[in-house]
């Protein structure tokens, strides 16, 4: 191991903090509120769903080299401090300059965007992110686009209408950006230096095993530790599990500082998605080749989650309702696993899931990258949930298909939410080849669904509802194909 440090270094609102022991193990929100005296950041749900805890974070270790270090919003309530070594954090308290409110804050005041005020700090952070991210032109800030920046913030008072107006009030506002104020070259280089060092810390707990945390700064350091603790990446799920008292482990390895995990490269038609790529980076990377799936990421993840959660986490979490897995199944992705010492292994994702939350990976292995072959297939991604945005699916469905002269020449189809793992529907795939997408095909699919699916009843929908949805989504897809072909005929006629 390289030279090692026993504490976390991060900058909060322009002030450097050295954080040790149990404070480094806290969620950032708790550290801010109860240690740093910054109580503006609120904790409501402690599961990354409501956004009251939102803060801006700039990761100086982000190795996508041609891009400057930028602020992104995250949920501080599910983000352990130790995962942010070398980061620059800005909270609601620092948005205003000494003299005046920021444009975002002033617009919120002017539009009566705050009522009870409890969601307001998070809303101000999300709107500040909007402001950092866009040029602030009238085309960029229209209600439909502004809403996309606010899907991760719940408000129970306003009905959102005044908040959307506050966002639209940011058009053409001239103001020095937060990046200019807080991401100065010296600040960035100081903290970037911190990311080059390994960190190890531990502390004792009364009545429980001591906590130990490793934060390797290189691939080599990481390989020496595999198997010694729970790997933790974006923490968008583990952070929740911990808050709910469901995380039994006491040893953790943070992956936040491993540059190699951030690689996104295309070689010979194979997209290699590094396991450390966050959802927003995956979205950018897949936009050209898999736009249907890339677009759907906005529905299942808020900006705050997209900025830190990963596709790899979605895979390893092994939820039967994982949003990314059906898509990977139908596009026959492979997983690149590395063992201790760096031994490589490639596993088709269709072989990876062995039962409910059971995956084919040894305890000393790590998911290193997802390998996704480009293809020319048509893609469809469907998701049904209780609420359209930022909700766990009741059911999801991914389809990759090709029609030649009106009949299926290729079909891969996978459901989520209908069995103990995401489920490739090989029975439908094999019956489809050579057939037209017509009513008879829909009826045969329905029969295959009756035979293959045994969904549970739970808080997100009854078993009966899921069965009905599975069949209806197939039907919807076939009607869409029909409509598309009619449109093609019409266009041809024109």
């Amino acid at each position, binding site marked *: 191991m390289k030279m090692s440090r026993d504490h976390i270094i991060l900058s909060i609102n322009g002030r450097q903090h050295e954080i040790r022991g149990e404070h480094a193990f806290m969620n950032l929100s708790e550290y801010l509120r109860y240690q740093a005296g910054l109580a503006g950041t609120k904790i409501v749900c402690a599961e990354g769903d409501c956004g009251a805890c939102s803060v801006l974070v700039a990761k100086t270790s982000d190795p996508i080299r041609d891009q400057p270090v930028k602020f992104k919003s995250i949920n501080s309530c599910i983000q352990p401090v130790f995962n942010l070594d070398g980061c620059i954090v800005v909270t609601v308290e620092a948005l205003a300059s000494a003299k005046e409110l920021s444009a975002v804050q002033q617009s919120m005041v002017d539009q009566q965007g705050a009522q009870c005020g409890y969601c307001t700090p998070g809303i101000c952070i999300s709107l500040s992110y909007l402001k950092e991210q866009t040029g602030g032109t009238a085309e960029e800030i229209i209600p439909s686009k502004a809403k996309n920046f606010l899907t991760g913030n719940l408000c129970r008072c306003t009905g959102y209408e005044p908040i*959307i107006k506050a966002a639209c009030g940011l058009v053409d506002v001239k103001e020095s950006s937060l990046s200019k104020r807080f991401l100065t070259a010296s600040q960035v280089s100081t903290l970037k230096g911190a990311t080059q060092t390994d960190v190890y810390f531990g502390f004792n707990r009364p009545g429980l095993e001591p906590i130990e945390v490793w934060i390797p700064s290189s691939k080599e350091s990481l390989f020496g530790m595999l198997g010694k603790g729970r790997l933790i990446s974006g923490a968008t799920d583990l952070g929740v599990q911990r808050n709910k008292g469901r995380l039994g482990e006491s040893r953790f390895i943070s992956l936040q500082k491993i540059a190699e995990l951030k690689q996104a490269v295309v070689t010979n038609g194979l997209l290699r998605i590094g396991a450390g790529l966050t959802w927003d980076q995956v979205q950018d990377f897949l936009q050209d080749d898999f736009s249907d799936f890339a677009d759907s990421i906005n529905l299942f993840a808020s900006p705050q989650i997209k900025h830190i959660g990963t596709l790899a986490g979605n895979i390893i979490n092994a939820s039967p309702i994982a949003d990314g897995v059906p898509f990977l199944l139908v596009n026959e992705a492979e997983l690149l696993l590395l063992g201790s010492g760096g031994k490589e292994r490639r596993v088709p994702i269709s072989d990876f899931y062995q039962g409910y939350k059971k995956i084919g990976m040894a305890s000393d292995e790590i998911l290193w990258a997802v390998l996704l072959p480009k293809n020319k297939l048509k893609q469809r991604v469907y998701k049904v949930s209780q609420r359209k945005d930022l909700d766990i699916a009741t059911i999801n469905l991914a389809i990759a298909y090709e029609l030649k002269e009106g009949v299926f020449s290729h079909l891969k189809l996978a459901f989520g939410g209908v069995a103990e793992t995401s489920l490739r529907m090989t029975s439908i795939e094999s019956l489809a080849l050579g057939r037209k997408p017509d009513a008879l095909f829909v009826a045969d699919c329905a029969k295959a669904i009756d035979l293959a699916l045994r969904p549970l009843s739970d808080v997100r929908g009854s078993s009966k509802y899921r069965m009905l949805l599975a069949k209806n989504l197939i039907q919807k897809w076939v009607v869409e194909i029909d409509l598309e072909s009619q449109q093609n005929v019409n266009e041809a006629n024109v």
Partner: protein
Amino acid sequence: MKHGHSSAHDSAVSHVTGQSQYVDDRQMLKNELLVGYVTAKVACGKIQNIDFSKALKVPGVVCVLTASDLAHNNWGTIVQDQPLLAQSQVEYFDEPVAIVAAESEQALSLAKKMILVEIQALPAVLTIQEAVNKKMFLSVAEPFIKGDFNQAMAVAPHKLKGELSLGGQEHFYMENQAAVVYSSENGHFEVHSSTQHPTETQHVVAKALGIEFHKVTCIVKRLGGGFGGKESQAAPMAAMAALVAQKTGRAARMVLTKDEDMKITGKRHPFWHRYEIGFDENGKIQAARFELYADGGAYTDLSPSILERAMFHVDGAYYLPNVEIYAACCKTNTYSNTAFRGFGGPQGTFLIESLLEDIAVFLKKDSFDIRTLNSYQGDRNLTPYGQKIEQNPLPEIFSKLRKSSDYDSRRQEILKFNSKDKFKLRGLSMTATKFGIAFTARFLNQGNALVNLHVDGTAQVSTGAVEMGQGVNTKICQLVAEVFGIDSKKISVMTTSTEKNANTSPTAASSGADINGAAAVKAAQAIRQRLARLAEMYFAGQTFDALNEYQLSQSAENLSHFIFKEGQVHCTRTNQKIIFSDLLKKAHLNRISLSEYAHFKTEGLGFDKKTITGTPFKYFTFGAAVTEVEIDRFTGESKVLRTDILMDLGRSLNPAIDRGQTTGAFVQGLGWVLLEKLYHNTSGELLSHSPTTYKIPNVQDTPRIFNVDFIEAYKAEGVGIGAKAVGEPPFLLGISCWTAVKNALAGLESSRRPDFSSPATGEVILFEIERLKSESSL
């Protein structure tokens, strides 16, 4: 800044900078303890044993307390039937049974896991229907009977009979329940609580500790949302923290997580309605018989009053000539349901709006026409409870909204759309709100206020009102500014505290600004009267010196020619002026009080439930909404495309705040009827207890087009401020989202009428589409 001015919320700047302080933002004292509780894991049962010996051995744990440690366990606003800690009988899943106090979060959570609660499970009653069958009622209301239902029904050409189930709703205030209690000298306690009812919290705490009321002060800076959920149910958390403070002599803090909060606190009452109505060929209702069953949960709480308000609002905005309204509140083994914006009113009005949609489907007529035909108008103005609707803007609202929402041409477009589109189905519907303003418990319609002027020309105002985002402090500030003719920036509305304002009513029933504002105005006017008298003497040339001072006469002479405006006092008769703060200095030097306390009560209220006579409401707030929804035919998912709202708010004090109340209430109503589903397992455990599983509306769920407008048809009478209450009335307009779904499903042209429950989740809608499709193909 006065009447009609949209000045910013008085906490706007501290909100956006993160400086606003809530209970859990208070800095922790060195000796402060964190307080948590453990709960019963059955919905009904007998406690056999609680073993906390292991928990006490966890380092950092200070004490574990149970029911026997309380001087007085039972509390309740109407009936004191709810224990703070279950003593022997458990009545709902996750009912608290023991309190733990510890020095750290880790110690607290570890200790909670080490407390063993043995309970002998008993059969639980988990549904309204089961409770009705077993006649398990918390309260049964005196029925409202008007006209002759039986006779009218016998001759009615058309009849409908059926039932309607409405789900509950979690408040989902962003700030979870919280209290910090400091024990101070001589057995006094200072309670900081996130409560809408500081007085009740003070009383519950004092009784729980076995001390007199004067030893407890309850202080409330602000709430991060309340919506009724902190009217009665904030008190238990304050009492639990206070008990720890009493037993240990240390500061004690109890802050619930969202999961804990949702599991143990009550929610909007689910209702099960049974109905029979008769109507003529045009759709005019001739007879109606309603049975309203509310799910009160385990304990009484505010349920009898909520049930009554449902009965008072089951007519909605519509005239029912012959009607019988019966109602009962069921006891079930679930958390004790409580106040929630609308207080039963939405559940009542829901029924009539659903039936009007049904009549339209049945007669194949337009539902807006059916509503216009049935609405209160002219001499068709007598409610089922005998109060007349005197100042009625409904006809004006209906006709204006029909035009402004472009209803008729959109109706035609929707008919075309539904006949063609293979994927989507659209529906359009108007519903109305006629919300009665006043607490139906007369004694609550009182408020008091303390106004202190300072010699620099600024003022501090204290009332019993609790600021929870609704802008009551801003409105009170505007009212007092108007009395003194000074900028509202010169006035601070202070922290609510029972030591300044005692015996207050909860900030609820949309009445916060009405009664507290009126009391503040009354106090301010009394000071202004003294100041005008002083100005009169000063302008007349009287002086004061070491021997003589100004003596105010007690005459009631009208001093309206003294105008308080723009920081000056102006006598219009003599055209003399003095700067306001200069006059205040003279007043103080002459020993004239610059402070006043005033009490206000709403006059003319009184209702006898036994005889159904009197005036339960001071006035009504009216409004209507037209909503268009779109449904996915394959998945049942719905989306609100457009909503147009028109309300009569009288002489609005602050149109921007009222607009925010309206959009906020509407979207909350939208959530109630389309999205928010409380899901329990068969043991009665709530499984949707956080935003991952309980979905309140997100920014994307708001109407894509959202038009809100107000008219000023009638001022509010008798509360002195002219503006109409706005907190709850627009909540009922969310019902238009559900009736629009019903309207859309009628577009399937089944042989059966759409008949489904609320909330109309994707699952409910999809099954209903299936049912209607199968019926139509028969």
